[in-house]
């Protein structure tokens, strides 16, 4: 339980930078929801699309986005500049694809850029690395469940009026999976799917990890932590923001590294991250408005984070092959 709380705190941090209707500061605050709104009505604060054309210009600090004649700004009213053209194109596409209203919850790349530009939590590089590296202790792929059995997922507290169907859904914010000791089929599935990834990471970084089902988890050797931390230190701050974002989505450092080193695709990484949930879905059935909803959201966030890391850390120089005479 304590682990989930930690993660909830980490996973919700990106929201800090994204006040509703406040992705840009080029206009006044959005319309306030009417006072007579019902308790559970969706927030009416989605702003209308106030621009027609989105374009990209190259400024001194990097690439900027223009909404009609206005320049896009961050929530702290800084000029929105990104270091790579591909990222600028992707962000511009996000803004251009908004239809009648601006749905900020679909603009993950813009959110990540805003977080990097504004740095609302005032963290420096070391703190970012630490935030990502602390997941090593509770990594989904090798840590045991804090509540031991996978069956406990069914007994998690939910709304008092929860029906039987709702009870098997994981509560939002819970970790996606952990090492379990029973049932046998799930143990085997985890061994078959997760161990190759751990093996790959051990070979790739020359470290020792191992997995454990004991309640304390494996004790990660100090050298492993040093190696991985120094590897993370080779990334710039922007990329580290993305890495920390992906780690807090997947709840796993190893899967994130696999994603960044082009070893796993986003779909594979997300599947491995929620392996236990996939197992339970196979057993108890899929619920579209919860399982699929979460799956697509997790995929979108993970893909956005991975793309952000790749686009921010690359230093591409195209070398044309000389024609052979």
């Amino acid at each position, binding site marked *: 339980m304590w682990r989930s709380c930690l993660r909830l705190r980490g996973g919700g941090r990106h929201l800090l930078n994204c006040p509703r209707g406040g992705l840009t500061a080029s206009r006044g605050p959005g319309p306030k929801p009417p006072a007579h709104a019902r308790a559970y009505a969706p927030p009416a604060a989605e702003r209308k699309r106030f621009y027609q054309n989105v374009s*990209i210009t190259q400024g001194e600090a990097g690439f900027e986005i223009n909404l009609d004649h206005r320049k896009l700004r961050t929530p702290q009213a800084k000029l929105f500049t990104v270091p790579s053209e*591909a990222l600028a*194109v992707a962000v511009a*596409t996000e803004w251009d694809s908004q239809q009648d209203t601006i749905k900020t919850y679909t603009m993950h790349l813009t959110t990540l850029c805003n977080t990097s530009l504004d740095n609302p939590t005032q963290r420096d590089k070391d703190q970012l690395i630490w935030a990502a590296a602390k997941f090593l202790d509770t990594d989904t792929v090798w840590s045991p469940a804090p509540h031991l059995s996978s069956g406990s997922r069914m007994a998690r507290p939910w709304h008092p009026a929860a029906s039987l169907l709702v009870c098997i859904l994981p509560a939002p914010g819970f970790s996606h999976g952990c090492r379990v000791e029973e049932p046998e089929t799930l143990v085997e599935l985890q061994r078959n799917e997760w161990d190759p990834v751990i093996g790959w990471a051990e070979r790739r970084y020359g470290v020792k990890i191992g997995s454990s089902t004991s309640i304390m988890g494996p004790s990660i050797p100090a050298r492993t932590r040093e190696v991985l931390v120094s590897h993370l230190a080779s990334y710039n701050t922007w990329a580290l923001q993305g890495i920390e974002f992906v780690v807090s989505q997947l709840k796993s450092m190893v899967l994130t590294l696999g994603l960044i080193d082009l070893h796993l695709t*986003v779909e594979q990484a997300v599947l491995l991250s929620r392996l236990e949930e996939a197992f339970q879905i196979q057993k108890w059935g899929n619920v579209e*408005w919860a399982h699929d909803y979460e799956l*697509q959201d997790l995929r979108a966030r993970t*893909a956005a984070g991975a793309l952000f890391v*790749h686009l921010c850390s690359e230093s591409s120089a195209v070398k044309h092959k000389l024609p052979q005479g």
Partner: protein
Amino acid sequence: MAALGPPLRTWRGLLRELRYLNAATGRPYRHTAAYRYLVKAFRAHRVTSEKLCRAQHELHFQAATYLCLLRSIREHVALHQEFHGKGERSVEESAGLVGLKLPQQPGGKGWEP
């Protein structure tokens, strides 16, 4: 190395997503900056004669990641609008979610005028 499938499939998938994005605005997707950028990138990194071309694999990986991003966002928004975007459900809808129906009383409940 992650298995990504043929690059052409990724390219087609990206085009499909761009069409979805621009279907609402009514503008042809070929006029967007994203389309122009993707065409340029895919052309510049076409298969070379080298057996192992890391740059190409990297670009293909990024393209596949972007495709995953666009597709997941589209499906997430569709699910959001279907199930979560309308506020509180009525009693009938809530019952229908778990496969139940409210009882019908053909003669009315007795207190209607």
